[in-house]
């Protein structure tokens, strides 16, 4: 029993964090978001050079072969720096989907190798998401069709863009006509892979939300220490302190839930879906509280386009319902916990 990360995992997180701190400051993100495509090929190439896209690609295909546990740290960094979600979708979610398909699946190894190199952008169209992110730039779109896994190029699909309150989001309604040639895996293999993909997508959102929550808390702490009213920093007033203490508590208690879920997913535990839904609910709730209290302690300044806080708030609001909204995840938890044969109680913290 060891609920901590290895030195390697922590060092990798630290390296990515330092990299994003210099390469992805808020001013840069604002600039990128104003562009038509909303994505920077330069930043993407640099992230690939850092090894981010190769993280969970198996070593045989030129990757680092790390698992969901490593991603529970990495997605927090993507959230903290508000990196647009195509990175998580390609490098984590799509990689996991391809990995879950049996060896010998057409195009599987080739796509994995391309992901590791950072040469390909993949959008993932899971039925749980009515609109699909990042199709406008994707080289390949993986879609579900009657349980099967299909890979189509952007040219093969129709899509209509839907602007979001989060200027970094690029959402599309897809219209696809899958065919025998686009089919990578049949429904037997596909169903299981899609289930896992849903869990990975939800976990990626959970991790990003937690990172966003931490960023909003840090921004708020910085602000309340500097801003003075009644001759004192507003951070010395108790009402302000308590708002932020509550955010800190929510974050602290969501973290282990996220890590627990990542572990369950990596090990293919029977209770993984329950753990993932719990994690997504806990992390998104922390992020929403960080946003609400964050804007409150910023006063009217928080309601402006000018403060950086707005970018992180909008991201967490937007992500909240992706990869299964709260109702979806809550009913998964209810189904598991209220089942007649549920193993719950003190002895079942780590499953039965």
């Amino acid at each position, binding site marked *: 029993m060891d609920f901590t990360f290895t030195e390697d995992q922590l060092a990798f997180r630290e390296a990515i964090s330092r990299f994003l701190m210099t390469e992805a400051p808020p001013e840069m993100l604002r600039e990128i978001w104003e562009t038509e495509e909303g994505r920077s090929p330069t930043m993407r190439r640099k992230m690939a050079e850092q090894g981010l896209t190769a993280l969970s690609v198996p070593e045989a295909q030129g990757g680092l072969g790390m698992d969901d546990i490593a991603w529970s740290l990495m997605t927090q960094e993507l959230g903290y720096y508000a990196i647009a979600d195509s990175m998580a979708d390609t490098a984590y979610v799509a990689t996991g989907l391809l990995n879950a398909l049996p060896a010998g699946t057409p195009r599987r190894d080739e796509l994995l190798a391309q992901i590791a190199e950072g040469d390909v952008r993949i959008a993932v169209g899971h039925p749980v998401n009515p609109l699909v992110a990042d199709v406008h730039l994707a080289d390949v779109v993986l879609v579900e069709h009657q349980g099967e896994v299909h890979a189509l190029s952007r040219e093969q699909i129709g899509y209509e863009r839907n602007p979001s309150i989060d200027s970094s989001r690029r959402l599309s309604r897809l219209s696809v006509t899958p065919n025998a040639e686009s089919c990578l895996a049949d429904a037997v293999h596909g169903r299981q892979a899609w289930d896992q993909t849903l869990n990975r997508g939800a976990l990626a959102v959970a991790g990003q939300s937690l990172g966003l929550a931490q960023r909003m808390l840090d921004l708020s702490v910085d602000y309340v220490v500097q801003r003075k009213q009644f001759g004192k920093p507003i951070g010395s007033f108790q009402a302000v302190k308590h708002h932020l203490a509550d955010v800190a508590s929510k974050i602290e208690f969501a973290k282990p839930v996220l890590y627990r879920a990542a572990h369950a997913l990596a090990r293919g535990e029977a209770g993984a879906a329950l753990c993932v839904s719990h994690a997504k609910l806990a992390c998104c709730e922390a992020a929403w509280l960080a946003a609400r209290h964050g804007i409150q302690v910023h006063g009217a300044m928080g309601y402006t386009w000018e403060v950086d806080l707005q970018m992180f708030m909008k991201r967490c609001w937007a992500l909240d319902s992706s990869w299964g909204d709260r109702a979806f995840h809550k009913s998964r938890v209810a189904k598991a916990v209220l089942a007649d044969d549920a193993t719950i109680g*003190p002895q079942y913290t780590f499953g039965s």
Partner: protein
Amino acid sequence: MHLNYTDKQNAFRAEVRAWLKDNVPSQPLNSYDTREGFEEHRAWERKLYDSRWSMVMWPEHLGGRGCDLIEWLIFEEEYYAANAPMRVNQNGQLLLGPTLMEFGSEEQKRHFLPRIASSEDMWAQGWSEPNAGSDMAAIRSKAIRDGDHYVVSGQKTWSTRASFADWTFGLFRSDPQSQRHHGLTYLMVPLDSPGVTIRPIKALNGKEAFAEIFFDEVRVPVEHRIGAEGQGWHVAMATAGFERGLLLRSPARFQQTAKRLVALYQANPQIAERDPGVRDAVIESWMGAQAYAQAAYHTVGLVEKGAKIGAEASINKIVWSELDLKMHETAMRILGAYGELRGTAPEAVDGGSWLEGFLFAQAGPIYAGTNEIQRNIIAERMLGLPKA
């Protein structure tokens, strides 16, 4: 990260489970907030001690098993799952014990620790005074040195189960000129000393759950001081950390309550129709208890690698106390018209235990340092916000 128990841990769990199965009283004991129940609990603690289950983390020469934190968590999980009696000597075992281990003299350790483990001595906590609650540094009770004794005068209050306890430990002002947290001394005082008067205070449930302690020139031998004269604040702060941190409220306690809440909800299926919000509250309760347990394992992992528990202890305190409230409020919503019934009522559900728990949960955000004070600590020490 690997979240599997070792063979040794599994064997330990099996051993705990088997012992509890053979030994947990089949009928619940009387409330330890009554004299009769208190003595029944003392006897139960003695039984635990005789089989070395009283303080599993204490070393073997003190009657413990030298367990590590994971084994302790496992022990607690089995203990609560077996519905074993609540522990009554937590003041001695979780607060004074560790304080003595860190600051006590060899002589004090040798004498007091085994008696604490066996509950031969039961301890009351003497921090609060009528004008020193949240502001503990405002205490005024005096302990003036007179040769090899301190002469103690003043008043403590809200002292849990002091009516039944044998000893109290607390802070006293040994330097009459001193202010705030300077000049305080940490003393252990036998409650049968001449000059001690105890006046029970009835708690919300009508029982004598706490008491006022009056000291009228009580002579306390210098050997009963812990740490140096005037250093009491420093010693007490270490003790406060133990209380709020993990040990006072192990996650298993709340996981067991969450499990009972799920069962209560399932036994009352019509409630979901009348109030769909209740299902939500039940699920949230289970998730809260589960998260608390996962956080505990996570913290233990870090502590075993050398981390120190800091302001996290304050977060824990807020989380468990608010979770406990939420779970009992939810139970009351499910019970509806039956919620108000006392345990003696013929139609009481679960022996009135939800109502008792609901009443006690009201105190959680107040004792062990109010949640407002904990939030201040988090904001100032963890987030670095300026003091008022």
